[in-house]
C-alpha cells in the first residue's frame, strides 16, 4: 500500500437516492427505496436471492432504468461510478496488465500520470504483479475475480458499486480487498456492496445495512426498508 499521505482525495460528498422503484419482467422488484451514503461510507445490500440487490446496483450504475425515484451523486456525476457485476469483464486473449490498462484508458482519469498511478496501485493492492503477464484465459475463477476487483480500483473512480465482490476469492484476497476498501474510504470514496455477508467483516461502524424485498407493496415485509430509509 502506498503511504496514506499520497492518496489523492475523491471529491464526491454524498451518494443518495429516494423513492427508487424497479420493475423487471412486469413485476415490481422494489419500490419506495431510499438510501444515503456520505463520503467514506459503505452501504451493504443484503437480502435473499432474487430480491433485487443486483438490480438496485445496476440502477445505481445507470445500466438499468428506474421506474421511479431519484438518485443523486453530490459533487460528482454518473461517470464517477465503477461497477463490478457478476461477469468479470476480462478478455481471455489479453493478459492481466493489458486488461487493466484498457479499462483504465477508457474509464480512468484523463491524465496519463494519474492513470499510471491507479494502475500500479491496483496491481499492488491485489498482489497481481506475478500474474501481470499471464493471459486471462489461464486464470482461475478466483484470480479472475481478483483482476476484476483490481479493475475497479484501477479506474480511480470514487463510487464503487460491487455485486458480490468476494465470490470465489480466497481468504488472503478477501483481506486484500478489505484493505483496498478501507483505503478507498480513507480517501473519501464511497462503496455500495451487494453481499450475503458471509465473509464481510467491515471494521468501521459507518456501514448502513439495507434490507429490502419486493413485489407486493401492501405487505409490510415487502416494503423497502433500510436503516435510514425514506418511508
Amino acid at each position, binding site marked *: 500500500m502506498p503511504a496514506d499521505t499520497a492518496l489523492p482525495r475523491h471529491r464526491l460528498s454524498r451518494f443518495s437516492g429516494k423513492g427508487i422503484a424497479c420493475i423487471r419482467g412486469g413485476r415490481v422488484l422494489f419500490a419506495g427505496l431510499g438510501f444515503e451514503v456520505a463520503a467514506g461510507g459503505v452501504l451493504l445490500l443484503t437480502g435473499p436471492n432474487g430480491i433485487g440487490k443486483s438490480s438496485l446496483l445496476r440502477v445505481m*450504475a*445507470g*445500466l*438499468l*432504468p428506474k421506474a421511479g425515484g431519484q438518485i443523486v451523486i453530490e459533487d460528482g456525476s*454518473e*461517470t464517477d*461510478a*465503477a*461497477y463490478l*457485476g*457478476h*461477469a*468479470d*469483464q*476480462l*478478455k481471455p*486473449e*489479453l493478459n492481466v496488465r*493489458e486488461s487493466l490498462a*484498457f*479499462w483504465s*484508458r*477508457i*474509464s480512468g482519469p*484523463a491524465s496519463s500520470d494519474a492513470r499510471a498511478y491507479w494502475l500500479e496501485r491496483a496491481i499492488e493492492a491485489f498482489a497481481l504483479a506475478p500474474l501481470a503477464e499471464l493471459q486471462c484465459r489461464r486464470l482461475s475463477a478466483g484470480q479472475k475475480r481478483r483482476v476484476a476487483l483490481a479493475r475497479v480500483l484501477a479506474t480511480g473512480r470514487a463510487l464503487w458499486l460491487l455485486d458480490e465482490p468476494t465470490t470465489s476469492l480466497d481468504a488472503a484476497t478477501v483481506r486484500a480487498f478489505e484493505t483496498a476498501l478501507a483505503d478507498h474510504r480513507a480517501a473519501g470514496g464511497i462503496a455500495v456492496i451487494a453481499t450475503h455477508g458471509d465473509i464481510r467483516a467491515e471494521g468501521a461502524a459507518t456501514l448502513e445495512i439495507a434490507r429490502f424485498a419486493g413485489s407486493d407493496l401492501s405487505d409490510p415485509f415487502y416494503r423497502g426498508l433500510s436503516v435510514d430509509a425514506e418511508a
Partner: protein
Amino acid sequence: MAIFCAIIANDLRLAWRRGADTLTAVGFFVLAALLFGFGLGGDPSLLARAAAGLIWVTALLASMLALERMFAADFEDGSLDGLMMTDAPLELAVLAKATAHWIATGLPLIVAAPGIGLMLNLPASAFTALTLALLLGTPTLTLIGAIGAALTLGARRGGVLISLLVLPLYIPVLIFGVAATEASLSGAAMDARLMALGGFFLAALALAPFAAAAALRQAVR
C-alpha cells in the same frame, strides 16, 4: 477521442490474437468464389460477365459471417456494461467497435478481391472500380451489420437472425456496388454509382451508431 482510439486499438489486438474472424471471412470469400467458378464451368467469357456480381455477393456474405461476434463477446463477459460507463457516449464506442471490425474483416476482403477477380476472369480494367466500390461499400455493410448484431444479442441462433435482418438492407449496396464495377467495363462513367455508395456510407455512418447503441442499451437491461 482517446477512448475511441483505445477501443479500436484493443479490438484490433483482440482480433489479431484471435485470428479466427479475419480468417473465416477471407477463407469463406475465397472458397465461395472458387465454388462459383467451378459451378459455372470453365467458360471464361461467362465467368467474366458474372464476375462482378459473384465477387460482390460472396463479399457480402463473407462480411456477414463475422457480424455475430461484433458485440457478442463483450455482452457475454460483461464488458458492455463497462463500455456504457465511460466518459464518452455509447454511440462513440459502437462506432469504434464497428471501425475495428471493418479493419479486421472488411479490409482483408478488399485486399483479397483482386485475386478473386483474377480467378474469375474479371477484366483487369475493372480492378480499380472494384476496389473503390468495395472501399465505399464494405464499411456500409459493417455499419448496417452493427445494428443487426446489437439487435440479436442474447438471442439464440442469433447468426441466422442477423442474416434475415441485415441481408435485405444490403441490397442497395449490392446493386450500386455491382453497377459501379460493371460501369468501368462498359466504359460508362462510374462516378454516379460510387457517389451513391458514398451516400449510403454517410447515411449509415450517421444513423447506425445511434440505432446500434439503442439496441445495446436494451440488451444489457
